[in-house]
């Protein structure tokens, strides 16, 4: 009885939360299917209009920027490359960093870990000028690697993998060794499959993190060719309905990645049980 009540109650809270989050998005979506004049004269619209196709195709193919070098489609491609790049590089690098910290006889491994961890307190925004000068020395300004690398060292992901590895019993490593597994094989055959669920979670997290970057892409790209979606939100010219349409489209990739990967994520959890 109590359980019934409490589960209904928590559902109610969830529903309220969903409404609070969904309604503004819906307002923008509904408004983006009207003509600009309706929005300008009557404000945001709650019901769908009839200009959906027209507005959205215009936005996708509209050539923006000063030099008219970039379309929304290209921005999506850029953002996608950057976000996947960040997700891949950071997951792989933190997996390996954690492996070294936990399993190798590194002197002062704990100290090293905390030094890595402290970088959480120094976000990119704080070290943006030195980072820029490093990237320009490496000739990575105006390139995809320039967008990806500086934000791909993730202390949080390293922390998660490290804590997870520490829970794996030593006997597993020992019996793997006796079974002839070398350092590399233990990583590939044991740690990677065992942390599958966590890898997927971290991948989603880092994808969204990379996708949402704003300040860094602005600094490191002077060519419009490398504009990302989030930059485009700011730079976009055109009428209000087109901006609304662009906002709605910009939300799709992160949502999509979560929906696609969530399946594996949940499957992983159930298999481990």
């Amino acid at each position, binding site marked *: 009885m109590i359980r019934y009540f409490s589960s209904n109650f928590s559902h109610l809270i969830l529903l309220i939360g969903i409404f609070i989050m969904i309604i503004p998005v819906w307002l923008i979506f509904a408004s983006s299917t009207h003509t600009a004049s309706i929005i300008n004269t009557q404000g945001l619209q709650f019901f769908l209009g009839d200009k959906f196709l027209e507005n959205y195709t215009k936005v996708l193919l509209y050539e923006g920027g000063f030099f008219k070098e970039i379309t929304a489609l290209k921005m999506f491609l850029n953002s996608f490359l950057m976000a996947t790049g960040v997700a891949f590089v950071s997951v792989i690098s933190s997996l390996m960093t954690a492996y070294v910290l936990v399993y190798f006889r590194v002197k002062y491994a704990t100290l090293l870990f905390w030094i890595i961890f402290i970088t959480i307190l120094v976000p990119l925004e704080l070290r943006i000028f030195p980072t820029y000068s490093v990237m320009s020395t490496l000739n990575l300004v105006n390139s995809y690697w320039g967008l990806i690398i500086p934000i791909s060292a993730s202390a949080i992901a390293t922390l998660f993998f490290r804590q997870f590895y520490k829970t794996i019993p030593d006997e597993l490593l020992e019996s793997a060794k006796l079974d002839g597994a070398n350092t590399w094989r233990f990583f590939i055959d*044991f740690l990677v499959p065992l942390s599958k669920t966590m890898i997927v979670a971290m991948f989603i997290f880092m994808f969204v993190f990379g996708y949402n970057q704003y300040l860094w892409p602005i600094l490191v790209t002077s060519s419009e060719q490398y504009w990302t979606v989030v930059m485009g939100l700011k730079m976009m010219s055109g009428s209000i309905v087109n901006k609304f349409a662009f906002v709605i489209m910009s939300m799709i990739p992160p949502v999509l990645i979560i929906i696609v990967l969530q399946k594996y994520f949940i499957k992983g959890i159930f298999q481990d049980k």
Partner: protein
Amino acid sequence: MSFLELNKVTKIYPNGTKAVHETSMNVENGEFMVFVGPSGCGKSTLLRMIAGLEDITEGNINLDGILINKVDPSERDVAMVFQNYALYPHMNVYNNLAYGLKNRGISKEDIEKKVNEAAKLLQISEYLQRKPSMLSGGQRQRVAMGRAIVRSPKIFLFDEPLSNLDAKLRIQMRLEIKKLQQKVGVTSIFVTHDQVEAMTLADRLAVINNGLIEQLGTPIEIYNNPKSMFVAGFIGSPQMNFLEGELKNKTLTSEGFEINNVTSDFNGPVILGIRPEHMSQTDKGLINLSVDLVEQLGSDNLIYGEIKNKKDFCFRCSGSQIIKKGSKLSLNINDNNYYVFDKSNGNRVN
């Protein structure tokens, strides 16, 4: 040259704990050796040095004629069964068995053949597709055994593999391990702190105390002829009775009785050891026992009682005899089956 030779092997852990002291011993090809001793005596440490999981501080270990001190565990060709089995949780049983073979570059068909053979031997064929988490404790135990057997290693190492099983399964697996080892014929070292397991499994037995081998021999040798009080007390169940006494000119005085013609030239305070099963009832015996407690095991009775100053003295007799609490028994030692130890250092003196 023996199959496995330990030469003055010493282990000092980085924190200064000296777990194994200058231990030397040989294990012959095909032999079943058991390390037995109380908790913390260094059994696991010794085993893990043979496996290569701990560095050897001093001394040498030779396996099959090769010095293996510096050989990586993955190259030693030894297999170990851990107390908690350490099965690979993300692989099914088939892959658990196959993994070590894959790493040795054996062909797929051969792997399949070997895994199926081992699975049949251990009666786990029907679980090959299951993950370890879907198996019972006993089945996991078999998988762990299978993983060792399938590789046909030079040597099997067991670190208390039965201690997570319930009593009945433990006895059953104990038997199966022994049978299996005889069938496969691989040299084995088995660590346990259970003296019954040790006695039943071993071809030879090493009783370890405080990082030292106190005695090495066949189970029956050690049972009949313990070299020290520690070994005498550790091997045999129920435990040997120990009585304080004094030995002077081959006459031993203890707790109200005397034994003459003791075969020893030792003079001074001693401990007299008598096994509960080495006594029998007579009319005018040496020892007078007033019974406090009777444990009926069915086949045997264990009688606990008092003789003069010694409490909980144990005597074992046939289960058909009816003995009441509070009665007085008169006992004799059979065939001079008693042991005399120097009280100061516990060494056997008769």
